[in-house]
C-alpha cells in the first residue's frame, strides 16, 4: 500500500496556530469537514479523543498519529498538519508535537488501517520525512516531501 493514495493534500495545514491537542484536532477535523470528506465533525472529533484517552498517539520526536474508525468515511483518509512552535500533545517523551498525521478509516477496513499505521511508523523512522516536513515552506512542499520520502521505503 502507498500512503500517498490516501492523503488529502487539500486538507493539509501548513501552520496550526493552536497550542493544545484538543484545539489542534478540532481544527484539523474541521478542515476535513470543510472539504466535504466528513459531515459530522463532532462525531469524528469524539472518536479521536476517545482513542487519545486510552493513550496519547504522540509517539515522540515531535510526531503524533491520531486515528479513529468512523462510518463517516467510506475509505481511509490521511491528512497532515504542522505546528512549528509545537503542540502540547501529552507525548511520552515530553517534547512538543510539530507534525500531526491524522487517519480516519472505515470500521470495515481494519486491515488497511493497520497497514497504514505500520507504514507511517516506518516512514518516520527510516527517512528524513519529519525534518523535511518541518522545513517545508508551503503545503505544496509538504506534499512533495511526502511523495519523495515515501518513495524511499
Amino acid at each position, binding site marked *: 500500500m502507498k500512503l500517498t493514495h490516501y492523503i488529502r493534500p487539500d486538507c493539509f495545514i501548513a501552520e496550526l496556530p493552536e497550542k493544545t491537542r484538543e484545539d489542534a484536532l478540532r481544527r484539523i477535523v474541521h478542515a476535513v469537514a470543510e472539504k466535504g470528506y466528513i459531515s459530522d465533525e463532532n462525531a469524528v472529533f469524539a472518536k479521536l479523543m476517545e482513542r487519545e484517552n486510552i493513550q496519547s498517539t504522540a509517539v515522540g520526536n515531535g510526531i503524533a498519529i491520531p486515528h479513529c474508525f468512523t462510518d463517516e468515511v467510506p475509505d481511509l483518509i490521511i491528512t497532515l498538519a504542522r505546528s512549528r512552535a509545537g503542540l502540547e500533545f501529552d507525548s511520552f517523551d515530553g517534547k512538543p508535537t510539530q507534525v500531526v498525521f491524522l487517519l480516519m478509516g472505515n470500521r470495515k477496513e481494519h*486491515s488497511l488501517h*493497520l*497497514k497504514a499505521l505500520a*507504514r507511517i*511508523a*516506518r516512514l518516520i523512522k527510516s527517512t528524513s520525512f519529519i525534518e523535511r516536513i518541518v522545513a517545508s515552506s508551503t503545503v505544496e512542499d509538504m506534499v512533495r516531501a511526502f511523495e519523495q520520502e515515501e518513495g524511499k521505503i
Partner: protein
Amino acid sequence: MKLLFIILNSAEKLEEVLEGLLEVGVTGATVVDSVGMGHIIEDVPLFAGMRNVFRSAKPRNNMIFSVISDTQAAEAMEVLDKILGCSQDKGRGIAFTLPIDSSIGICKES
C-alpha cells in the same frame, strides 16, 4: 503457503521489520531471541586471535518466522529487501521463504 524465515543480524531492525510485515498484511509471527555463531566462537580460546573475523557478531539477534500466503510472501520479500538490503560492509540480516507441503493447525482466516 510459504514459511517466511528471517534472521536479523542486529536486533535494531526488529521493530522496522515487524512494521514492514504488518504493512503487507502479516499480523502474526514468532520472534525468537538468538545468538549468532560468531558471538559464541569468539569466546573459544583457540579462536581468540581471530576476533576481527567475527567483529560483526552482535550480542543478540532475532529469528522471525511466519506461515503466510504466496501473495504475502512476494510482498514481504519486497519490503524486507528495502529494510534489510545489503549495506556496503555486511548485510543486516537474511530472509527467505520455503514452500509448505503439508500442515495442521493452520486455519484460513474468515
